[in-house]
């Protein structure tokens, strides 16, 4: 079953055609890689899927419904969670609070309930902090729950972003360079955690990543973009050997000759 489908999506910034007629399908329960050289339009695609940008053309079908142009909060509430390339945690808040923010579906108390500290408020707070603790546990951050998020080391901040995204109880998780700045051991742990999310929580994951050890290891299908256009799609082994992919990453032979 297809969970997410992009149909001929275009995104244009002034004179820059950042995404040009990109289409792909992501199967439910799969781990899908989105790769390409710097500036290829990977993060733009994430922003289009999550509603930060409205595409000029094309459709984005999530669970069969077109979500192109909806507000980010609505798309998130429908079950699309994401992390950010340049970490966007709520720095002044504690680790647990960061995660609890995303728990809107566990929250039914009104503002008046909160102001008067009614039973409904207390039930909500308990449900939120219990769920947050479970997720922090999964990502190995439970011991840091009370720390100020901005004071965490880089790798922990990235994992905190994942925990926060999971609090939405999403179906689809978009990870934007989750291994950036991690050493090979941390990246290995991340691999395991991504697999855990899919196997145990039934999530579908789309991964933008430059760390090929992570991408090739964990993804079942990889989609390659360059200059906003699709250049290849296939299994990791196919992508590794694909001439266009090699050209995009290493430069074409003709260019090499011209340089040398």
């Amino acid at each position, binding site marked *: 079953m297809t969970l997410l489908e992009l149909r001929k999506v275009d995104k244009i910034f002034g004179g820059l055609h950042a995404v040009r007629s990109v289409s792909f399908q992501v199967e439910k329960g799969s781990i899908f890689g989105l790769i390409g050289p710097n500036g290829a339009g990977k993060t733009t695609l994430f922003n289009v899927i*999550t509603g*930060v940008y409205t595409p000029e053309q094309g459709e984005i079908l999530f669970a069969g419904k077109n979500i192109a142009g909806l*507000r*980010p*909060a*609505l798309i*998130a*509430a429908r079950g699309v*969670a*994401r992390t*950010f390339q340049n970490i*966007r*945690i*709520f*720095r*002044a*808040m504690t680790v647990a*609070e*960061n995660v*609890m*923010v*995303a*728990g*809107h*579906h566990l*929250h039914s*108390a009104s*503002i008046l309930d*909160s*102001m*008067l*500290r009614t*039973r409904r*408020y207390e039930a*909500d*707070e308990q449900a*939120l902090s219990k769920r947050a603790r479970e997720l922090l546990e999964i990502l190995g951050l439970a011991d840091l729950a009370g720390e100020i998020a901005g004071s965490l080391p880089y790798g922990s901040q990235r994992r905190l972003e994942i925990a*926060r*995204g999971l*609090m*939405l109880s999403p179906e689809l998780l978009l990870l934007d360079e989750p291994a950036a700045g991690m050493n090979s051991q941390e990246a290995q742990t991340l691999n395991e955690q991504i697999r855990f999310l899919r196997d145990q929580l039934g999530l579908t994951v789309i991964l933008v990543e430059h760390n090929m050890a992570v991408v090739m290891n964990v993804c079942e299908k990889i989609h390659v973009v360059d200059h906003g256009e699709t250049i290849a799609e296939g299994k990791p082994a196919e992508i590794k050997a694909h001439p266009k992919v090699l050209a995009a990453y290493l430069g074409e032979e003709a260019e090499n000759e011209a340089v040398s």
Partner: protein
Amino acid sequence: MRVAIRTAIAAAVLLAIYGLGLGVEAGFNEYVQRIVLLAGVNVILAVGLNLINGTTGQFSIGHAGFMAVGAYGAAFVGVKIAPTIHGLLGTGAAADAVVFNLALLAGALFAGISGLIVGMPSLRLRGDYLAVVTLGFGEIIRILFNNATFLGAATGYFGDDPSGLPAYTNFFWVFAWATTIVILIHNLTFSQTGRSLTAIREDEIAAEAMATPTTRLKVTAFAISAATAGIAGGLFAHMQAGVRPEDFRFEKSIDMIVMIIVGGLGSISGAILGGIFVAVSLELMRDLQQYRLVLYALLLVVIMIVRPQGLLGNRELYQLVRRRKATRAEGA
């Protein structure tokens, strides 16, 4: 059981405030009493403004406008409903209390609605639009009152009685309201709504990506903040014979901002301290007249250099104490 316990605590607190009020009225002259009342009004203003400027990170620089709406609204409604209420309940202190509190709530309602009208268009967008719009609103409101003949125009509104507005405001009402508002806003801040507001301040794009209804929450927080300023305005109005447009000039908005910056943006205890600080320092600087603004500006510059997070940062007083205890325990 729960409700009974809470009612008992509330009654005890109100009784304590009442007793304290009697003490202050017996022990201090009118001049000191007035400063104490102003400090209480300031606490309400600062805690309300902190909700939007500190917690939510959306800068309002025209909050004197909402205070003015509350002051005029409460004064006008109070004068108009007094005959009916007195007809029903007699002319005792209880009837006065009913009139006064209904008037205050009416002022808060007017101020809250103005907050909605100002906030709805300007908070839809990300960025500092609110600052520009509230600056304009503060001035427009003052000029409107300056020209509204049924509210006394530039002379101010003194009610229908030649002796002016009734002096309902006393220690008990100011501090009963201040305590109530501090508790309500504290509870709101430390709830899912408060966390969402803080998340908007920290990173609005990320908050939105986490399904936070940012616009609705920002507008709600702003309306609550405006309504709070309205209560403060109503209390202020009934401290003197009348309300005048010049009581709500731009300087008043600046005073409020000083209160929350001195105490530490985002800290409720900081706002309380800041409110008291401004009430006292305004009295100490009374002889300097308009030069106090220069002093304030200097003070703000010094705070920005020496302690940009304000007295308490965005933490609460009790959190700091707890943290200190925790570190001491670790050290031992």
